[in-house]
């Protein structure tokens, strides 16, 4: 994966333009020449993208990032290796442990079971997006208050999962919380702290 590179900031290339063809070179040509035929070509939607590295634009925590990724790169790999957002965690080959939970268009998702290329154009929120300066999500505050972490490895995924759960179920009871969060595993056994935090937030109407 040495050939991968990333560039932050907004892209000036339209989504359709670079969707067409096999990546940067072609898209750049279409923009640069402005030739009619290139524009006509770009209007025809291409549904097939090559296996090689290509431009993929991800919107993470409100910022657009233009990356060079192969289709096989998972969202978790792109977040951790290309965007240095290491809150979402990888747990070996076990993809259903919850430590990699992110929110995509409002839905909780295991980032290791999504390809980065699948989620172009969607709004991705990672645990890093839940605190900006002094603006800290109440889920994080509640985790601190209820001592809901031990080694901390599962914690970012748990925080994101609780945030997604509360958004949909602001008045849930303990049983519903335990059921909804069953996809998040904690080896240290901090479940009591996590559910205490979630129950308190539900009593406040989901915060």
């Amino acid at each position, binding site marked *: 994966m040495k050939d991968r590179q990333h560039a932050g900031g907004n892209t000036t290339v339209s989504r359709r333009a670079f969707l067409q063809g096999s990546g940067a070179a072609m898209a750049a040509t279409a923009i640069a020449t402005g030739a009619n035929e290139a524009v006509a070509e770009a209007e025809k939607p291409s549904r097939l993208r090559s296996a*090689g590295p290509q431009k993929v634009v991800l919107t993470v925590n409100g910022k657009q990032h233009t990356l060079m990724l192969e289709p096989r790169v998972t969202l978790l790999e792109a977040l951790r290796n290309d965007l240095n957002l290491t809150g979402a965690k990888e747990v070996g*080959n076990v993809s*259903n442990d919850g430590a990699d939970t992110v929110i995509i268009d409002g*839905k909780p998702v295991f980032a290791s*079971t999504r*390809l980065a290329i699948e989620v172009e154009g969607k709004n991705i929120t990672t645990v890093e997006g839940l605190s900006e300066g002094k603006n800290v999500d109440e889920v994080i505050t509640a985790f601190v208050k209820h001592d809901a972490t031990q080694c901390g490895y599962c914690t970012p995924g748990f925080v994101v999962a609780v945030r997604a759960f509360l958004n949909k179920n602001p008045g849930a009871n303990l049983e519903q919380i335990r059921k909804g969060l069953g996809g998040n595993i904690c080896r240290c056994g901090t479940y009591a702290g996590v559910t205490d935090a979630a129950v308190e937030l539900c009593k406040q109407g989901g915060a």
Partner: protein
Amino acid sequence: MKSFEFANPQSESEALELMNENPEQTVVLAGGTDLISLMQADIIRPDRVVDIKNIDSMHDVQEADGGLMVGALNTLEDVLDNSRFADYASVVQAADAVHAIQIQSSGTIAGDLCHLPNCWYYRNGYGLLALDNGTSLPEAGDGRYHAIFGNSGPAKFVSASRFAPALIAWGAKVRIIGPGPDEAEMLPLEYFYTTPRTQRQGTTVLKPGQIVSHIWLPKPGGAVSGNYDVLQLEGLDWPLASAAATLTISGGRVSEARIVMGHVAPTPWVSHDAATALLGKTITEQTAQAAGDAAVSRATPLKDNGYKVQIARAAVKRAILRAAGLCEGGL
């Protein structure tokens, strides 16, 4: 993960076109909860992945042909949230028993029907038949989660689908499209599943280049249903066994019954014995128990999984009681 081309069709016909340039080396991606893991483990190594999530027609739920036509891409969460499923209690209960909001919001109903076995030998590269130099690993090694029915051939894994028992008990059909651009057929879900006899055969009748586009459910017509998953863990887990019952009760007695077990055989396992045991009976603890006994009377457990016979018996009993409103579902 091996590299692959990525296709993003916007319609069923476009999907079939993209599937059928090299169908043997192409796979369909929906929620990804199963496929991405299998690709990461190099169990499935496609040259092309066709992501069908952006095909609008496969997200619909519509009344059709005297029933409900459910787009393949409806997620477990959609099933839980959409009131059109309310009359199919067993289907809703199957979705509810998947204890993770992440799987509920990503996993699709057809993805579940096509979910590959969780057999640990399959997941570690020994193929569906789990053979090592001709030795059946589930028989010689650890087969505690393997089949107690339909296991006389080389396949010992259990069908992984959470929805299939409930849907089969309702008489659901699947709409299969492809491989040709205009080809489509409706197949009873019961006949969708196959037990492989060689390493090259799969778990369903789907041929390369075909996709399940919809699932059709008949009108409930006053029938009641229940689904019961016996889970080992409180969190996200696969059932040790499950059962679904769809019953028509008239004048306090069962006039029609369909009982299907899950996670006990290489395919969902329809029990005519259990259904017959219920006919003409009033549902009570005793008659449900008798149906459970009948359901497992012909079980053929392996050396490690005799305990699953009792689990399957209990699942059948509770699914029946749940259908009749006599059991809430907790263990």
